[in-house]
């Protein structure tokens, strides 16, 4: 077993209204960033976990997303894993 860092991104599906994204878009426009066309606000979650390898870590993280980290009715998710040096801070 070795230690892995899972970087999970959860984001509202394109078909789902995103009031937070719309509010941030308005805010950016008000600040003069008129080039901004769209904003979607999601969530980033770091998970440290033990796994045999990257593939297992990824599979486990996907299970976590399906059961808790994301609501797949309204959100999609992406998982990236990288090895963690023993004792290193994330």
């Amino acid at each position, binding site marked *: 077993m070795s230690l892995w860092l899972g970087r999970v991104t959860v984001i*509202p599906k394109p*078909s789902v*209204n995103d009031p*937070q994204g719309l509010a941030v878009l308005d805010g950016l426009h008000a600040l003069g960033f008129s080039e901004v066309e769209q904003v979607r606000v999601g969530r980033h979650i770091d998970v440290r976990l033990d796994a045999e390898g990257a593939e297992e870590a990824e599979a486990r993280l996907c299970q976590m997303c399906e059961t*808790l980290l994301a*609501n797949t009715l*309204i959100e999609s998710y992406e998982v990236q894993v990288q090895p963690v040096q023993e004792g290193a801070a994330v």
Partner: protein
Amino acid sequence: MKVGVVTFPGSNGDTDCIETLKLVEGCEPQLIWHKSTDLMGADALILPGGFAHGDYLRPGSIAQFSPVMREVARFAASGGPVLGICNGFQVLTEAGLLPGALLRNQYILFHCAWTHVRVSSNRSPWLEGVEEGTVLRMAVAHGQGNYFADTETRRRLVEQGQVAFEYCDPEGNTSGESNHNGSVDSIAGVTNEAGNILGMMPHPERSSDPLLGSADGRVLFESLVRSMAAGAVGR
């Protein structure tokens, strides 16, 4: 009849539910802690409003794994009446006991106000005997009550009479203005297919006494007692 009210850490509508149930003849209210796996012989269950588990991650997302929820699901599957109010509605959707999801309100505004809802379908023990089209005045207080379900699900909800409440004006007309949180099709409450599980964003328990400004919400609890007495709820 015994009505169990579940308290999660962060629930804040549980005591209001208990006090309201005391006003309804034939109801014997009982608090149930979220770690309990014993429903104490409850004939009906209420998941109250509040911020269960601090609303962390998503409202209701952690509460769905509280030990009591397995019993709630079992109770609901056997036809027992379950009412989720506000955060309780969010818990029921997260647990997959009700269709859809509740998003941030439009304009990310926390909305605390009186609102009107129209009874669109009374196919539930919580609304039995309430004429469809009836307008009820009830309190709302939430930041995440913007109901979402995809088009196909919504078509099914309407077809099967699962849309219990729609936001409307005092005359019963729906409009963008009365739909204060941006819910799809102004949906304020839905039931499961069988009708025994009802989730709603407005607070009937905070609208059950003229002293509070409205007693319209009491009709839900009276309907429950009536339908239980009539044996209409199969368990």
